[in-house]
């Protein structure tokens, strides 16, 4: 059976997990998203 400390570590650890996951995805995704929308249309790019 889990102790109170272990449960706290588990719950807050999962919170840390989502933070890590969010930043690992959000930073490159944000940059790529910005780059794509700032770029020219694909048809213009290939000219």
């Amino acid at each position, binding site marked *: *059976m*889990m102790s*109170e400390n272990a*449960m*706290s570590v*588990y*719950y*807050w650890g*999962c*919170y840390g*997990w*989502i*933070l*890590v*996951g*969010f930043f*690992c*995805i*959000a*930073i*490159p*995704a*944000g*940059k*790529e*998203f910005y780059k*794509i*929308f700032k770029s020219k*249309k*694909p*048809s213009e790019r290939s000219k």
Partner: protein
Amino acid sequence: MLNGAMGYIILIIFAFVFIGISGLVSKKFPAEGVDDFVVAGRGIPFGIIAASVMISWVWTTTIMGAAEAGTWYGVSGGFNYMWGAALPFFFFIPLVLHLRKIMPKCTTFTEFIRERFGNTVSTIFFIFGLAVVLYVVTEQGVGIGIAFNTMLNIPYWVGAVVPIMIVAVYISRAGLRGSIFNDVIQFFIVCVIFIVCIPIILKSIGMDNIYNGLMDVVNNQDNPNYNPQALSMTSISGLKYGLIAAIVAMGQVLLDQGYYSKAIATTSRKDLMRAYIIGTLLGWAPIPVLSGNVFGTALISLGIGEGHGVASLSEAAPYIMNMVFGTGIGSLLFILMVFMAGMTTGGNGLAGAQALFTVDFYKKVKPDATERQQLAFGKKVTIVIGLVVAVAAVMLQGVSLLKIDIFSGILFAAPTASLFAGLMWKKTSPVVAVVSMAAGLIGGLITYFMIEDPNNAQFFGNLVALVLPYLVIVIGSLFSKYEFDFSKLKNYEPAQKVSIKEEA
């Protein structure tokens, strides 16, 4: 308290935002051909795909179902939901990486099946692929309909039909690229809601209160949620639940063209692997664990159970949101999460169906069709599928989603073995593939109906549907003289124009 008028306002705002984004995407990136429309020209980079994979795998049940699992199995509930639903991706990733390697110009998995096993088997897989999409999108519509009905008091059918049609319109206009770009926006919104709400809920209820409440669940037989294993991570019933989740999810991932389309849309195989691993393990996985812990165990720690404060344990997540944030903002945040989870999953499914119909179906029906005609057909058929799903969602009001889930597991697990074998083993013949599917389906259903205990029936029915086809394939292929030449897939040229980069 939010009222019906607020519900309609939310729906109208969502409709404007999503359809507006699809308009922007289709204006900024007009489809230059079928490949550009259904797999975004195969040029979407890692981060965007990771966000898209993560959010499209967040179903309404990832939040509400995992929260319910937390009420049933305590601290192991969300975790078991997570590994069960994540496992299929670790079958899907090597499978799709291998597919891109052996058949670089492939777009749909049914296209591969046609080249590998012939038209008959491809048609069977097309039907399975379409059934998965109809099932997945309908389930999202039902989930959103229930949430809008119970929390905003607007008619169920409006809550189910309007979101489905919004998704159908934006996928129809903007194709896979529109779906992916919408996913990224919704990834940010859902993650921010989670990141902001979770610590507030934990602080508000208090870790010590949750623990003491769970101790009562473990020790007090009069507790409405009495469960001696509520504080154990090795609960046997929880592990069994995870295994069923894995089998049910196996077909939902391996037969959903939406995931193939995204994998094929990724710039390179290396980016594809990174995006799917990070999107699943780092992005998606904490969502069900946190839902199980923070919504599910928090609810039972308060002494609330079925008939003791809530009508059903599936109300765990909205109950906790309303309790901590008040019925106004709590309802709004919860509705936002469920709506976006459903919309992104539905969009992924519809984009997959669009690819199946545009690339495969229409070319079979009209072999001399131009790419322009294919595109026009793909756009129209997306709206038609949306309408079919909307009608199905309305008809399913009040039907147990759990029962549908059980049968979907048996139905969709059966073909996965032949898909795998088709990619990996030259000795598997079309006949063996069909026999394996039939054996899995019939064996799974017989097992389900022959076992009296409903939990065991569900577990063993799904297990037989998944495992029996593998046995049939191994035995059938070993005794077969059939050999497929994989090298011919390398030079496969689809009807539509496809440009690919050479990869190692």
